[in-house]
């Protein structure tokens, strides 16, 4: 390929990667707090709620995210003739973000649950005998200890999420792999070529490298206590 063709290729990949990043950040922003709510539901003393969450956890974690994407994007229309997502790339993005947020929130909830469980019962009791409310104990005592405990497993999930975003091409979201794949059959006056698709891996590698550094720093930042 000529330099000019490469420039076309990278232009297309850049645009695709912006969409990848948007999906990535939307998922984190949505799933991190939603996971907390799900965890509270799972830990609820109201048994039916806990059971419901356990059932949903089984479904969400037990079935392929790719299928969940299809169900969320096409399901409402097929089942109820209801089209909540709107058309075009914006609609596909909304549906993909919803599917990713729900899926990752359930994984996060399980990680949070493990983090909470790792905090000794004595922390809660110490707070109680000091006259603190359960809310104060959660936010002032447990939360930071939980965050510290979950940073390593969350780092794993976050890095997986970067790559999982590519699943959204099943509903034709125009993320970076979708952009690279176009060139497999030839596009923009460039003959069929596999190199653009392979180049997408570099985007993931660089971004995950940055994330790894960032998460490592967060882990170090929290190492001031044990």
């Amino acid at each position, binding site marked *: 390929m000529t330099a000019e063709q490469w420039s076309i290729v990278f232009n297309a990949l850049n645009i695709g990667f912006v969409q990848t990043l948007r999906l990535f950040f939307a998922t984190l922003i949505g799933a991190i707090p939603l996971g907390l709510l799900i965890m509270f539901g799972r830990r609820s003393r109201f048994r039916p709620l806990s059971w419901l969450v356990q059932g949903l956890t089984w479904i969400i974690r037990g079935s392929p995210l790719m299928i969940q994407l299809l169900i969320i994007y096409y399901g409402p229309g097929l089942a109820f003739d209801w089209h909540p997502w709107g058309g075009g790339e914006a609609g596909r993005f909304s549906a993909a973000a919803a599917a990713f947020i729900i899926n990752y929130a359930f994984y996060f909830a399980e990680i949070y649950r493990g983090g909470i469980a790792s905090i000794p019962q004595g922390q809660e*009791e110490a707070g*109680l005998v*000091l*006259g603190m409310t359960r809310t104060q104990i959660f936010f002032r005592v447990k939360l930071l200890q939980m965050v*510290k405990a979950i940073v390593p497993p969350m780092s794993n999930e976050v890095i997986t999420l970067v790559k999982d975003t590519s699943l959204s091409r099943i509903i034709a979201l125009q993320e970076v792999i979708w952009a690279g794949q176009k060139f497999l059959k030839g596009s923009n006056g460039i003959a069929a070529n596999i190199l653009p698709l392979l180049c997408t891996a570099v985007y993931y590698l660089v971004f995950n490298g940055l994330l790894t550094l960032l998460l490592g720093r967060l882990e170090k930042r929290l190492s001031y206590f044990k």
Partner: protein
Amino acid sequence: MMLEVKDIRKSFGKTEILKGIDFEMDQGEVLSIIGSSGSGKTTLLRCLNFLETPDAGRIAVNGETLFDGERPESAGAGELRRKRLHFGLVFQNFNLFPQYTALENVTLANLLLAKQQPDYKQNRRAITERIVAEAHELLRQMGLSDRESNYPHQLSGGQCQRVAIARALALKPDILCFDEPTSALDPELTGEVLRVIRGLAEQHMTMIIVTHEMAFARDVSSRVIFMDNGLVCEQGTPDQIFGHPREERTRQFLLPFIQR
């Protein structure tokens, strides 16, 4: 009578841990509770601090009934929190908050409680300064002035336990309870914690101490309770219990100690 405990009972499932505990305490008394593991000493302390709800019985402090098994608790969580503050509890495993410095551990609960004061908004600064000043003073009393900005993991077990004592004292409880305060410490560190508790006894702090340190119990207490199998088997002055135990079970329990 500062503390009245009447017929406290507590079961976990089918296991009856407390089978009707009665005792009373005057202001400034130091009460040691001794007895073998599983005799219910810790459960009793946890009931006094409302970490466990007794199945039956009555607990009153300064004439105010805090718990009455006849009238099961209708009080909300806020009421329970207020009642708890009559008691302080020092745990066997310290249970310091690891992400806070020694000083912050001592001030945290007070700073949160202060927010409920009606004049908090106007006097925020003065209130905070007073709480911090009191914490400085408490840590000084504990011999930890140079450790204020250390995190718990940077402190020895004995230092942690002294921070925990300061933290409990910061809320000015009527009665300070200790649940085997030296059991998690190696012998070298036990002494410094016992010295601090002895110092509090000299200042006439009302205390209940669950302990396996017999020499200490004999020395520091004004009264000793020997618990066995969920009941108060015998109580009396340290001299009575350690010198002339009336009950066979007490003699048996104290035998290894007396022979020394």
